[in-house]
């Protein structure tokens, strides 16, 4: 296990290094930056600022500075917000996590239940309906369904607030604050759950269909167990097992925020921060964010690999 882990870690580092180089070059290639785009500044002030931020140095040298700082835990300084990038992440990330955690939990719960029932009743009308719903969920343009639901639920019916995390100017505290946040997050959570539901339900359904054909399910039935026990105890455990690998892949989604959903619902998360900085060409923050996502992706992949090996008694290193 340990040699395997060392190898994986090493490869991870190399990939991340290459990714950082790619990310840096892509942003560095982009002409125009925060300073050029800012019309309030005089030409002299611009040159001065460039000097300060080291923007007039060659690309490779800038990359080197960026990387060596990053190794010391310094991911740069947001030009637009005048705050360290890491601190900004700290400020916004938990809002993103709140949305992502709730919707991920709901997605998994609903997907498991529907997937199991649908597999058990394969080819029934319920199953056909589920299959169509799965395709519908997988084909939704995320921004459009977001806008559509805001229009209906918030604008027309006025059941829920259209966006934000709290009502503008609200001073609610304690339970009132909690209630307000729950109301505000309902719509984005619905949309995110809907978007994730399709592929996950389909995944559980086909896993269950495979598992239900196995010999040990026949054994469980031959033991005289109740159908519910056969399904949810014997079959589901086996169907869930490969899904553990997906937990790792959820990592970037959990902490990386959702650019589209947060933008549409004006949710103060890390994805919206990214979009805002994008308009301003705030490169330190953009690079930091992209790098952050790459790190999450790599760690997530490793995590899912390790989880699978821990969870499946058959796989031993």
């Amino acid at each position, binding site marked *: 296990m340990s040699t395997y882990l060392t190898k994986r870690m090493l490869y991870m580092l190399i990939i991340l290094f290459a990714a950082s180089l790619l990310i840096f070059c892509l942003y560095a290639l982009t002409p125009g930056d925060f300073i050029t785009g800012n019309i309030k500044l005089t030409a002299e002030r611009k040159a001065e600022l460039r000097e300060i931020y080291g923007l007039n140095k060659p690309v490779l040298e800038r990359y080197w500075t960026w990387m060596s700082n990053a190794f010391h835990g310094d991911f740069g300084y947001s030009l637009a917000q005048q705050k360290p990038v890491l601190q900004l992440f700290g400020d916004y990330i938990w809002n993103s996590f709140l949305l992502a955690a709730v919707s991920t939990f709901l997605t998994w719960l609903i997907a498991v239940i529907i997937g199991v029932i649908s597999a058990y009743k394969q*080819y029934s009308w319920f199953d056909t309906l589920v299959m169509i719903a799965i395709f519908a969920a997988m084909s939704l343009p995320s921004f459009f369904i977001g806008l559509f639901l805001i229009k209906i639920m918030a604008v027309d019916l006025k059941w829920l607030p259209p966006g934000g995390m709290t009502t503008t100017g609200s001073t609610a505290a304690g339970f009132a604050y909690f209630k307000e946040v729950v109301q505000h997050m309902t719509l984005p959570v619905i949309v995110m759950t809907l978007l994730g539901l399709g592929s996950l339900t389909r995944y559980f359904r086909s896993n269950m269909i495979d598992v239900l054909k*196995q*010999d*040990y399910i*026949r*054994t*469980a*039935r*031959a*033991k*005289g*167990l*109740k159908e519910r026990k056969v399904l949810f105890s*014997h079959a589901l*455990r*086996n169907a869930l*097992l490969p899904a553990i690998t997906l937990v790792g892949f959820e990592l970037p989604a959990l902490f990386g925020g959702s650019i589209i959903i947060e933008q549409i619902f004006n949710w103060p998360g890390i994805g919206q921060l990214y979009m805002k900085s994008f308009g301003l060409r705030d490169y330190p923050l953009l690079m930091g964010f992209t790098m952050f996502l790459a790190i999450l992706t790599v760690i997530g992949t490793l995590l899912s690999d390790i989880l699978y090996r821990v969870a*499946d*008694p*058959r796989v031993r290193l």
Partner: protein
Amino acid sequence: MEPVMNIDGLSTEFFTEEGTVRAVDNVSFKIGRGETVCIVGESGCGKSVTAMSVMGLVEEPGGRVTGGRIGFQGEDLLRLDKNSLRSIRGHEIAMIFQEPMSSLNPVMKIGEQIMEPLSVHLKMNKKQARSRAIELITQVGISRPEQIMGSYPHELSGGMLQRIMIAIAVSCSPKLLIADEPTTALDVTIQAQILDLLRGLKEDSGMSILLITHDLGVVAEMADYVIVMYSGQIVEEGGVVELFQNPQHPYTRGLLKSKPVMGQRLEELYSIPGQVPSPLALTPSCYFHDRCGHCMPVCRTRQPLLKETGNGQKVSCWLYEEAELYV
């Protein structure tokens, strides 16, 4: 003496894209108390489906028991509701399967899998079930039962797993144990051990065994009564000694002839010519006619019935009907 199980006119059909297949066709037999009945035949002859039908495990919508009666303790299993059937399954009638490697749940500990029927059928609490499970593991001849309880199936060998399957099956002292090719997937030396174990358990508890096999060696060793199946039908049945000494159906004779005999040297082992007919293309005839060395015109157009021929044997073949007609 009242038999443990009385199967009458059992038929099971499967519905495929190409058409309906009658995998078990009007099969009737009895299993006496403490008796071992063997069903023999080539693969695809319907012997396993017969066992699955008895257990009520034929899966819809692919297949369905379409007729007959399975008498067990004064009731017809085919007419029982799901819950009553479930309380019999694994309790009064238990089953073991061909592939011990895949028949146990790979992500559950052995102990948990043995304890399950104990708590479901005998309403034991965890502690009772645990000590009973340890007893059972010892009973099927595995040492270090405590350690085995905490193992996963992949950590044990095929022979050990089949012993565990047997332990699970006999855990609730069933009246009838159905064993579907229990030794086919195992090494020859292990086969003998498993058969010994089954025989020992049977003698201790007085349960009956319905043994499904294609191996005549296993039949000779285990059976009291033998049923020979071909294309979903019984072609011959009788006591084991009578049937081995005096096989009547050409198919039974072929099977016996194709079995190697110790101490006998042959140039080439006999094999029955041809192949089992496609179950989709059956017409009223003796289904064995195109492989039979004694095929007569009547064999191609009419189906022979299972008839008593004395000596407790029954056979379904025109050779014997004809003899009666002419006498």
